[in-house]
């Protein structure tokens, strides 16, 4: 007990602050119970939240198409990535809309609409835009959102090597 709490009762003889037997027992029993429950439950909680704490893998680049096949008009190219999903290993097929801009820079856009995740297509309505079939979202050739969608289309990291286009992880659009 601190001094200033004491000074009102200063005239009384100093009392030893003793714990009652009941209090001692409930502390030890409570502590033991907490320790045992913690020992049982904490590993389970760590087990359950493991996906949150797993290190995200470095993105790898996948060879997609010859550089010479890329035109100014966006074209869709399919490629497979190696995916390890827990105990399930698969090679799902992804696609990218790849084209060249005025400076002959090659860029690749993700086909996933930024509105609600449907798959967009190029020039579906003949307006030289990316169109989404679900809610009529529209994007320019650079992926700039013109209607409905809140954000521009995502881009793939692009790497050119030995005349081939390699695609890497997805990143937010850097062109608009």
């Amino acid at each position, binding site marked *: 007990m601190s001094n200033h709490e004491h000074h009102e009762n200063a005239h009384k003889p100093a009392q030893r602050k003793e714990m009652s037997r009941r209090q001692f027992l409930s502390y030890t029993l409570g502590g033991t119970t907490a320790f045992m429950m913690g020992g049982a439950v904490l*590993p*389970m909680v760590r087990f*359950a939240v493991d996906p949150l*704490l797993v290190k995200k893998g470095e993105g790898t680049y996948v060879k997609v198409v010859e550089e010479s096949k890329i035109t100014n008009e966006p074209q869709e190219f399919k490629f497979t990535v190696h995916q390890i999903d827990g*105990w399930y290993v698969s090679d799902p097929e992804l696609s990218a809309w790849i084209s060249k801009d005025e400076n002959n820079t090659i860029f690749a856009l993700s086909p996933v609409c930024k509105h609600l995740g449907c798959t967009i297509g190029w020039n579906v309505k003949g307006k030289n835009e990316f169109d989404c079939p679900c809610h009529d979202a529209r994007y320019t050739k650079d992926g700039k959102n013109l209607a409905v969608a809140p954000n521009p289309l995502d881009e793939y990291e692009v790497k050119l090597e030995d005349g081939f286009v390699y695609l890497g992880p997805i990143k937010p659009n850097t062109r608009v």
Partner: protein
Amino acid sequence: MFKSVYNWIDERLDITPLWRDVADHEVPEHVNPAHHFSAFVYCFGGLTFFITVIQILSGMFLTMYYVPDIINAYASVDYLQHKVAFGQIVRGMHHFGASLVIVMMFLHTLRVFFTGSYKAPREMNWVVGMLIFFIMLGLGFTGYLLPWDNKAYYATKVGVEIAASVPVLGPYIADFLYGGDIVGAQTLTRFFAIHVFFLPGALIAMLAAHFIMIRKQGISGPL
């Protein structure tokens, strides 16, 4: 802090009698190991329940990763045990706890038998206890198949063939357990359903009956 939250709720809902009713009961001298050390034999029922709680908890967490499917079952168990943090511990708790439950339950049964606690007026509690015993065996049997390894496969085959030797009903029991003609995809899903839904549901109901009866009748007297 805790006290004021408790008081706030208690003022409105009067919850004190609820837990007082459960918590306040005399522990007679003859079952208190502090008086007679040999009274530790009265702990086995509580220990069985404690391990059962751990089984239920660890089982709930295991189903976060496990899939009851013949292609993925073994792979998912392998993944959760070796790739997920503490997987070996959580699966270990469930694996060894399963054996420990049977051991503790058996010791509890022996104690009840040798103290004659099953006699009137507690016969119904003995019967419910026996039902719990068989539910536990069923949980052990159905759970054993789930990792879908060789041991699981043949243990189930042997177990079902033993069940199939029952006169008249045997083939029907086997068909019901297999869900078909072989230990296969249908056996695995049905064992999973029995293991995580049907038997635990029955177990909790029986445990409730067991505890209500012992509270109502009180613990049996000294030898």
